[in-house]
Structure formats: structure tokens, C-alpha cells
């Protein structure tokens, strides 16, 4: 079981085995990065936050009691660190809402789904989703987690995870289609 592998790697890491810690982090790296991206969006700051998350995990590993899954613990640390960074940023830089409104405004319908442009527009569209929908989507795709794993990490029912992901994708499709349509006003604010 994945949890058993984690526990073995944790035990070895606590004995000072650096390779075990590398393997342990390697198993959760995508998810940790996805959580941070889900909260902070596409910013250089995310990598600094991820560094802090891993330092916290390394320091906190002796106190990890295994009452929750390691993946849940990583999720909580990553989420807290990212939220703290977002709070700091709120006082220092442009709010995320303004960044979203400043995203490219026009694209011809023919090119709307071109991968590069779609990628750029995707970032702006992702930022307009509810945080829970965005986190579930990032964990599913960027973090490559199964629905069950996402449910455990976010500590929500499996059905809720499916709803978040389906609704998140439907919202993304709607936002992207609306922005690709010529002559139609852009909706301001977040999609609901």
C-alpha cells in the first residue's frame, strides 16, 4: 500500500538516510507543487514556498505520528505555507483578481484552443475558479493524484472530489469559450 511505502521511507529518513527522504518527497512532489500552484497560481514565489514546505517536512518528520496519511500531512503543510505567502503578497503586490483581469483579452476563435495560447489562458481561467475546485483540479492533473487520494488529502468525500473536478472543468470550458468568442464582453470577477 502507498501508505506502507511512505512509512518505510519515513523510518529510513529518520535514521538519516537521505535517499529515503528523496524518494519520500519524490512520491509527493507533484501534489505539493500542485497545491501551491492551486493557491498562488503561476508565480516564481511558488518555488520558494515549496522549498520552505520541504524544509518544514524534513524538520517536522520526527514529530509525524502517522495518525493521518503522510500525503494529508504534506497537503496541509503546503496549503498553510501557500496561504501564508498569499497573505504576505496581498500587502506587497497586485491582487490576484487584478492579474486575472489584466490577462490577454482577445484571441481569434480559430486559435483559441492552440496549446500555447490555451495554456496561457488556462492560467488566467484557473485563477478565476473557486479555491476548492482549483485545488482539486491541480491535484488531479498537475499532481497526478487519483480521486481517492485527493479525497484523503483534502479530507472530503469522494463524491465531492468528483463534483469539484467536473464543475471545475465545466467552469474552465465556459470561461475559455466566453473569452474566445468575438465581440462578447468579458465577465468580470470569478466564475461561480
Amino acid at each position, binding site marked *: 500500500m502507498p501508505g506502507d511505502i511512505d512509512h518505510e521511507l519515513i523510518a529510513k529518513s529518520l535514521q538519516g538516510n*537521505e535517499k529515503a*527522504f*528523496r524518494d519520500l*518527497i*519524490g512520491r509527493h*512532489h*507533484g501534489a505539493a*507543487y*500542485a497545491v501551491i*500552484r492551486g493557491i498562488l497560481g*503561476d508565480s516564481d514565489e511558488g*518555488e520558494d514556498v*515549496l*522549498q520552505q514546505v*520541504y*524544509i518544514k517536512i*524534513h*524538520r517536522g518528520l520526527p514529530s509525524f505520528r502517522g495518525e493521518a496519511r503522510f500525503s494529508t500531512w504534506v497537503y496541509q503543510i503546503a496549503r498553510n505555507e501557500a496561504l501564508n505567502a498569499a497573505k504576505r503578497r496581498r500587502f506587497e503586490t497586485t491582487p490576484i483578481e487584478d492579474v486575472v483581469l489584466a490577462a490577454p483579452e482577445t484571441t481569434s476563435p480559430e486559435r483559441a*484552443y492552440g*496549446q500555447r495560447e*490555451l*495554456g496561457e489562458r*488556462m492560467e488566467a481561467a484557473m485563477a478565476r475558479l473557486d479555491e476548492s475546485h482549483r485545488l482539486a*483540479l*491541480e491535484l*488531479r*492533473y*498537475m499532481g*497526478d493524484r487519483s480521486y481517492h487520494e485527493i479525497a484523503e488529502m483534502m479530507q472530503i468525500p469522494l463524491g465531492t472530489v468528483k463534483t469539484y473536478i*467536473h464543475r471545475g*472543468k*465545466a467552469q*474552465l*470550458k465556459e470561461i*475559455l*469559450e466566453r473569452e474566445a468568442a468575438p465581440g462578447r464582453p468579458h465577465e468580470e470577477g470569478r466564475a461561480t
Partner: protein
Amino acid sequence: MNSERIEAMLSAYAAGELTAAERAEVEAALARLPALRESLAAFTALEETLVSRREQVPPAEGFLRGVFAAARAAAPSPHPSRGRLRRWLDAATGVPAVATYACLATALAAFVYRDALASLIARLTAQRQMPSMPDASGVTDAIVAVAGGEMWVLAVVYAGVTALIVLSLSLVTMRFVREG
């Protein structure tokens, strides 16, 4: 199928998450309602873009180098710079240790030269013409003799030496354990 269920089914179809029966249901709906194909195309493009986000995850190794560097920086050095308290503790450990070895050496010398020591003490006490002089045939008697026959002095000396030895050996042991 209502519109939300159709959307959910098309999204899951594009993601390859449906059972065979559900896929057949969607394909039947697509055959019946060609307008759904445009929506499916949009979900398929969205799925590809979302999956491609995995490529944006940077390798973990770069972050781990920083983690291990931070851990090493935070770990105590094998030869730490010693604080004032630590230096005092070391001195406190060292002084009793030296005293212990000095006591043991003195005791050994007193045992080896016990006869000569006893006669020396006897001569000294005789010169002082001390009253009720006990027979100073051994170190114990000599101490009692020097103390003027007071046995409590002997008890204090032995108790002090014993306590000093026990304390010193404990401190030395602790020091070895701590540094070992």
C-alpha cells in the same frame, strides 16, 4: 440526461474515466445530438491542456539540495563553538576529575608508604606532646591522631573523599557518554 449530467459525462468521457456502459450511453447521445460533439471537442482540448500541466512540475532534486543544506546548517557541528555555560560545565567536570586522580594517587602512595607515614606522624604528634595519643600504626589512626582523637574528623574525611570520587566519576562518565 439533463444538461449538467451531459456536461459531466462528456467531461469524464474525454478524460477516459467512464465505464463501458457509460461510454455507450454517451456515444448514443452523441449520435442522437450532433451538437454535443462540439462540446466534447472542447472538453477533449481542455483535457489535453490540463494533462500537459504535469510537464510544468519542476524536478524535486533542486529543492532537496536546499533542504539538506538547511538541515546541515541547523545541525550541531561535531566541534561546536562552546558557549560560556558549556565552558563552565566542562571546567566543573575537569576539576573534580583531576581531584579524583590526585586522591587516588595519594591513597595509593599512603598505602605503599604506610609504615613510614605512620612513624612520621607518630614522631610529629610526640613532639607536640599531644595527650591520650592513640597508636598511629596506620593511615586511619594517623588521621585520628592528627585530629586530636576526634573520630568525627575521620568520618568527614572519608565521606568527603568518597563523595568526591563518586561525583567525579559520574561527571566523567556523563562527559564520555555525551561526547561519544
